[in-house]
């Protein structure tokens, strides 16, 4: 026995069925369009941390082999400093580089006599102290010490340089003109370099 299924050859029937399905769908859509769910707000927070760093690329150790009393004693080579920042220009006006001694009265300590920061001078021809200037200024933006600081530069920040760096040379000297005769020995100190935005 052979079963044969024949193809329905009635196109009008197919059209009728399709129309019915579409009509049902439209009615359903109308019913959904009248219902609105409660709004749910999702707060998006993504923080780009500002960055500010100071690196001494050379000259981190400065030495004068033989100090001369009552004279200006230059450290032989500059301190090369690279300052890098990535900040929001809408929230930052300037990047400032500070040099400071923790204890200004004893910038360099040795034997009986100490060398104060007033006798240590800095010069940055590409910055603010274009001539040798004693490290006797006050702190800036909380960075530095009273009477033992020197602002080396103040870099204006805009959209063009919100992410940038600069390299500067800091020359240092010890001015002993008029200073009491130093006792022989080695005098050691630490000059801090730190940047701060304002």
């Amino acid at each position, binding site marked *: 026995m052979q079963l044969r299924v024949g193809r329905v050859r009635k196109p009008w029937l197919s059209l009728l069925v399709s129309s019915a399905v579409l009509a049902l769908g439209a009615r359903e859509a109308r019913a959904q369009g009248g219902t609105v769910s409660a709004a749910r707000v999702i707060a998006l927070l993504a923080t780009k941390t500002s960055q500010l760093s100071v690196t001494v690329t050379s000259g981190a150790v400065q030495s004068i082999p033989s100090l001369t009393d009552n004279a200006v004693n230059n450290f032989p080579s500059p301190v090369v400093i690279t300052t890098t920042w990535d900040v929001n220009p809408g929230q*930052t006006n300037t990047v400032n580089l500070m040099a400071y001694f923790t204890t200004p009265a004893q910038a360099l300590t040795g034997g009986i006599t100490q060398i104060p920061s007033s006798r240590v001078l800095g010069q940055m021809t590409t910055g603010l102290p274009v001539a040798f200037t004693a490290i006797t200024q006050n702190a800036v933006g909380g960075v530095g010490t009273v009477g033992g600081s020197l602002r080396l530069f103040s870099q204006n920040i805009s959209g063009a340089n919100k992410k940038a760096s600069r390299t500067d040379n800091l020359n240092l000297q010890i001015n002993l003109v008029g200073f009491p005769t130093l006792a022989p020995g080695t005098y050691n100190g630490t000059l801090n370099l*730190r940047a701060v935005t304002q």
Partner: protein
Amino acid sequence: MQRPLNRALAVAAALALAAASTAEAQAGLTSNTATVTLNATKLSTLTVSPTTATTSIASITDNSLANQFPDVGLTTAWNLTAGTSVNLVGWFATPASALANGAALIPSTKVEGGINGGGWTAFTGAPVGTVGVAGGSLQLFNQSVAGGLFGTRTDQLNLRLNLVGFPTTTAGTYTGTLNVQAIVQ
């Protein structure tokens, strides 16, 4: 509709506050602290400074003590880390010819020195430490530094030629070099 709007406003306000606090933080953003080590060495010093480099007798008198040079001021300064005394020594490199006029010589035995008018002694002594020449030296002073390793003193160095009993000198100019050097002992 009102509740979602309120909630949105609240979230917006929170965001604004957060942004404001971030702005405050950035205004005082600080970097790491880089350091520069500073070393400066003050060496011990010991110096002698004469007030003049030349002293002269215009006319030598033979067989006489009256051949005195003008005094020479000497400032001796020291800044030490150790030692018990500072010694000042005058000496001729070649005692046999302290002063010479060609082949005519005046030895150091005929040159006398003293300090601050304290008397005359010929330059015939031994070195002090490593300073001086055997038979051609004179220790001018011995200054204790027990009270302090930093000090200075100024003296008048008296010099003369004692030509008593010395052969008649040849006419001409006698020149010589007296070395003055300090040493710590």
